[in-house]
């Protein structure tokens, strides 16, 4: 614990995973790597190489795997679902290809919902925090609207704000620009870059977009369930 600062934010040891439908198919084979604090990494690879599967294991949502996984120095082996939910809530920010905002609530409410769940700040403090994040994203004027009134690019930026509300140790993205046009892709990339450089935010993004990947600090290339270059 003493050298917390030097401990990599994410570390894996020999992660393997198989699907058994219809026959055994090993999608991840002995994946071992680590991500340093404050680095902006991308995982690239062809469809079916196991990069998304790896990401969902890293995000604790998929618990059916072999090997060791450490997040922020803590082993995630053998934690209950309740404990894993807590870890996701507190330490991981997730940005999906699709925005997954709740249409029932306002933009502001969507952003603060994980914060209320965590329960460390009051609603007023969270709202203040959220407005700051929305301002960084450039969508603070949309705070009181419902998500279904916004454009795809705006929604994705709000999703990023939601991922940041609990000050996670790492942001994970599964093709976060996959549904966006060139201009919005650029905006989202700039936001990520800014988070990485100014806030020393660790980021791990799975992407198809080679152009996007090339501009990150580090590229992890996968093929056939293995890391071939990192």
């Amino acid at each position, binding site marked *: 614990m003493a050298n917390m600062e030097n401990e990599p934010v994410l570390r894996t040891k020999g992660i393997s995973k198989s699907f058994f439908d219809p026959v055994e198919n090993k999608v991840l084979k002995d994946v071992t790597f680590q991500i340093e604090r404050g680095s902006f990494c991308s995982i690239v690879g062809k469809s079916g190489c196991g990069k*998304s599967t790896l990401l*969902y294991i890293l*995000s604790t*949502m*998929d618990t059916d795997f072999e090997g060791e996984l450490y997040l922020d120095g803590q082993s995630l082996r053998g934690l209950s*679902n*309740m404990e894993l*939910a*807590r870890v*996701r*809530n*507190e330490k991981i920010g*997730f940005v*999906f*290809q*699709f925005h*997954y*905002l*709740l*249409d*029932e*609530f306002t933009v502001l409410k969507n952003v603060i*919902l*994980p914060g*209320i*769940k*965590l*329960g460390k700040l009051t609603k007023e403090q969270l709202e203040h925090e959220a407005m700051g994040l929305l301002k960084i994203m450039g969508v603070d004027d949309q705070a009181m609207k419902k998500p279904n009134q916004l454009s795809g690019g705006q929604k994705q930026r709000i999703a990023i704000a*939601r991922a940041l509300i*609990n000050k996670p140790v790492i942001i994970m993205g*599964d093709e976060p620009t996959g549904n966006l046009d060139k201009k919005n892709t650029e905006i989202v990339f700039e936001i990520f870059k800014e988070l990485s450089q100014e806030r020393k935010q660790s980021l791990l993004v799975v992407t198809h977009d080679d152009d996007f990947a090339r501009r990150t600090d580090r590229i992890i290339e996968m093929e056939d369930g293995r890391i071939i270059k990192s």
Partner: protein
Amino acid sequence: MKLFLILDVALGFLMARLRQSIVAAVGVTFGVAMFIALVSFMSGLNDLLDGLILNRTPHIRFYNEIKPSASQPVNRSLLFQDAENFIRSVKPKDQGKEIYNSKAILQALKSDPTVIDVAPKAATQVFFNTGVIEIAGIVNGVDIQAEEKLFRFSDYVLEGDINDISNSSNSIFIGKGIADKLLVDIGDVIQVTTPKGDISSLKVAGIFQFGLAEIDNSTSYASLATVQKLLVKPASYITDIQIKLTDIKNAPATAFALSKEFGVDAVDIQTANSQFETGSKVRTIISYAVGITLLIVAGFGIYNILNMLIYEKMDSIAILKATGFSGRDVQGVFILLSLIIGIAGGLSGLLFGLGLTALIDNIPFETPSLPTIKTYPIVYSGVYYVIGITFAMVTTFFAGLFPARKASKLDPVTIIRGK
């Protein structure tokens, strides 16, 4: 804080599907309201029907039964003491209808703390004469104050003042059936013939109607003294003693004990009217069964709507889980959603139920057989409302539980990756 958050999310989902939620709640409202109206009405009806018979029946009646002597002469003979005696063609022995030592028995009963009150009766069969026509009937000589206290006689009186029975001698209250047949009214004089052939004239002081044609067509009431005079008997002549107990459940045991003590035959209300209790029970069971069925059907409505909602909101459930809501939290959201529908529907059901019973309570229900009943009978009891709301909550809880468990088990990865 946590519950507040879950409630917040549940309300969000509820608002998104407001119309269906209201329909589901209305289902519960209807179920609870009908349950309350049905049970209140059925209980009212039960009390009315039971009262028709049970109010007029003493808990224990003492009388002399016509029956064979318990000990036949042959059994007393020392000669045949050890033998099994078969006696054929035994004839019943009439000891007379009079209860012997009635004064002492009445005294003993009146001082018994488990006895509410005692009503002595001297009944006799008579003929009511009009012209050459004779109508068979009964005159009950009663202590009218005791009769009123025990059986609320005045509830059934159509015309006349019951005190006239004791105040003016030779007056009589007759059933409506007899009055119609004899074509007499209050103030008219009728002639009655006793079994021994004595003819007396009695003045009609009132007309009653119990609602049971058999009784209204044959029975009449006069004072004890009038009947004793009619029969040319002393003032101690009594044929029946009727009592009510503080606890009706003790009637069979008390009847047995007192019958032995006084050496008089006794019959208790349970033995005499066992069929009424059965009828009441069956009616109650039916009304509860129908009411609860309605609530269960409403529960299925909630189940359906929640299932649909979960199907529609899969993405939302997935993201809630991805951002740190546990399966328990998601389950809580949907159970709470279901309970909100249940509580809202149930509470308005209580109000509608009260309204519905009040409405039934005001519907005119006038039947010649029940002169004091003006509207349909209703029992207002808090117990029905408590049962109604409790069952509504339980039903909606279980209706919500199964969809909620399904939602809590949803794997966010399969939903998110399925896109």
